[in-house]
């Protein structure tokens, strides 16, 4: 039973695919009496026994008849259209150019302030670095003087002990 259903399904699928390939555009070419003879024997036989697929041919004709009113264009490109598109392209290009120029102009306008800011930062940075260096030098000097005051006697070397011990041997 399920095998039969599967077979019918695949036949219907093949029918739909063939219908799409056979049916040309236009309502007159979509009539069942013109479409069916163009289809394969297998498809025609299937249409005789499958109500859904034979209705699909009718639906094709019905849809095309219904859509005829759509074939009248909503709007057509006037002679001005190409010029309008090219003008829009130029306007957009100008806008993009102005935008990139705008960024550069902004940088140029702010240049004196930027220079002043950089100078201040440089001075502050240099002062801070010099101060840091000076502090470092002072700290090192303090440390080295403290080390000399509390310096203890150097620990005896092991060699000296060994040499002393050797002399006492018989």
């Amino acid at each position, binding site marked *: 039973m399920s095998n039969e259903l599967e077979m019918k399904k695949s036949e219907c699928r093949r029918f739909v695919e063939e219908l799409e390939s056979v049916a040309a555009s236009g309502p007159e070419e979509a009539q069942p009496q013109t479409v069916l003879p163009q289809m394969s024997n297998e498809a025609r036989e299937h249409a005789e026994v499958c109500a859904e697929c034979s209705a699909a041919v009718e*639906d094709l004709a019905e849809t095309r008849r219904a859509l005829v009113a759509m074939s009248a264009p909503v709007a057509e490109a006037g002679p001005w259209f190409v010029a309008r598109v090219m003008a*829009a*392209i130029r306007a957009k290009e100008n806008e993009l150019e102005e935008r990139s120029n705008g960024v550069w102009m902004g940088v140029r306008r702010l240049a004196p302030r930027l220079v002043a800011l950089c100078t201040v930062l440089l001075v502050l940075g240099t002062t801070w670095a010099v101060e840091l260096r000076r502090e470092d030098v002072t700290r090192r000097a303090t440390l080295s003087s403290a080390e000399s005051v509390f310096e203890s006697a150097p620990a005896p070397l092991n060699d000296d002990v060994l040499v002393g011990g050797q002399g006492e041997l018989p």
Partner: protein
Amino acid sequence: MTDSPRSGEDRELVRRAQHGDKEAFESLVRRHQSRVFAVAGGILRNREDVEDIAQQVFLKAYFSLIRFDQRAAFSTWLYKITVNECWDLLRKRKVRPLVLEVDLSEEQARQYQAAEEVVDGRLDASERLAARERVEQLLECLEERDRSMLVLKEVQGFSVEEIAEVLELNANTVKVRLFRARQRIAESVRRRLKPRT
């Protein structure tokens, strides 16, 4: 997608445009403008939106052209941008009026039937607009993607493979979805045209 002489010329124009040749891009606009209008017109409803989106599409294409590697046809790439721009606009608005089928009066249903019978150039502008409005109402029962798919296929004459590429879907998925969309439209048409008792 087939490499027609037209797409061969497109490739050359794209290559030149990528090197900054504005005239080459202008030629590309001239070659594809009507199809971009048609695709946008299949998705959007009013003239101003279609014009604005068409311009937006070419603007976007111009500034993204450098990244276009020509692996797909230029036209497919352009239609992909068009469909996405249209969906973006619809998403931004999100105020599509929901027209229920019962909202169609008997008079509207009669007009719909009459419009079907007179589909050649004999309809004047206002009648065409009204006929289109009725089709728009029919399409309301579909998801945005299915609606675009159906219009691209049945009105713009795109192939299943082209639609699959534009909408980034598998060709079989497109076929199945088209099948279901047609089913719904046909059902809805039959229901409307059924004589009321």
